[in-house]
């Protein structure tokens, strides 16, 4: 029961932190819970599919199917997070203004909800497929009684959701005019960590073979296997011994994000209704 609790707890937290950031980043946007729920449901279904076809997936692309798949969905999430942040860079102030006007629903944030639903889906799919494989394995071998297993799983899920909720409500204590600056910073680091993780999968799949020497090692300071190390790994992409390719991917993702936010996402001039052609 304890092992079920621990594994489920760990994976739920890892996905839950990402959901928490997405929820905070979309505070006040109508129908956001609907989109996030859709992302979670899609992620759970995807996780079951990935778990059911783990063998088939792995045998694709000369045995590198799993690595290629993980790298692809991570890069998809990076792209969606970048899009969200770039869009927010031009509309964030508008949103914060609307959010401050009490009782006024934010209408500007709807555009990137679908992108963030995909991010939620990817997070749930990645962590969820591990949970499904693990729990299925225990059920199949019949070592633990199913009741104990279910109890462990439920407790782990509740504890993981609880920690994620704490982070979400913590974020909500940030004043509205600062909230989007904070969430956009968190999303930038989240995306950078995912980009570095994607590179790791491409390396393990044999697609990248350069700059694979470890550049520094901080495992003495903070192990990636401990709970704090794992959380930081999920949130900001902490790696105890990153190699050159990972570091470049991490920095490149940040540079690309900030560059696009500066250029494409220039704050829109205060909205003045533009007459449509033909009016």
């Amino acid at each position, binding site marked *: 029961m304890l092992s079920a609790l621990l594994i489920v707890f760990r994976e739920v937290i890892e996905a839950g932190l990402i959901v928490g950031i997405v929820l905070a980043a979309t505070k006040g946007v109508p129908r956001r819970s609907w989109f996030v729920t859709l992302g979670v449901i899609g992620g759970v279904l995807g996780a079951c599919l990935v778990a059911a076809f783990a063998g088939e997936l792995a045998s694709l692309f000369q045995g590198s199917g799993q690595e290629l798949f993980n790298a692809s969905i991570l890069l998809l999430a990076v792209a969606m997070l970048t899009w969200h942040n770039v869009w927010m860079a031009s509309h964030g102030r508008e949103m914060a203004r609307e959010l401050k006007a009490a009782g006024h629903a934010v209408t500007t944030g709807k555009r990137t909800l679908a992108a963030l639903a995909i991010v939620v889906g990817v997070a749930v799919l990645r962590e969820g497929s591990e949970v499904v494989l693990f729990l299925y394995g225990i059920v199949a071998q019949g070592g633990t009684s199913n009741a104990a297993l279910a109890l462990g799983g439920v407790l782990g899920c509740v504890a993981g959701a609880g920690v994620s909720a704490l982070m979400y409500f913590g974020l909500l204590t940030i004043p509205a005019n600062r909230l989007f600056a904070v969430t956009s910073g968190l999303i930038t680091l989240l995306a950078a960590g995912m980009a570095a993780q994607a590179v790791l999968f491409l390396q*393990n799949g044999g697609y990248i073979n350069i700059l694979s020497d470890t550049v520094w090692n901080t495992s003495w300071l903070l192990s990636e296997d401990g709970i704090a190390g794992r959380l930081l790994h999920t949130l900001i992409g902490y790696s105890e011994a990153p190699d050159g390719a990972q570091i470049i991917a991490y920095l490149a993702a940040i540079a690309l994000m900030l560059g696009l936010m500066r250029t494409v996402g220039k704050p829109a001039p205060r909205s003045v209704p533009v007459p449509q052609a033909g009016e």
Partner: protein
Amino acid sequence: MKKFLAASLLLIAEPGLADGPIAVTLQNHKFSPAEIHVKANTPAVIALTNKDATAEEFDSTSLKVEKVVAGNSSGNVRIRALDPGRYPFMGEYHSESAQGVVVADK
């Protein structure tokens, strides 16, 4: 980022492996051999055959590997060029018994 990846993907050339893949079997949630020797500073491949009915995740932070191998199936785990030393790994779903170590010898 995209450009960097595209450029990297062009460099697919596989570095020469010292020897063929190292065969490792997982049965009753135990690795055999549980201690795997590789040459330091040389990439290697572990050909992991999972003889159990259930999936296992070959997991090692120090080796930077997470790889799911489905039940009654096999998969290759790439080991990067390592400094001399010991690198523990485990089967994440049965970590109480599925433990092993890669030893990089000079």
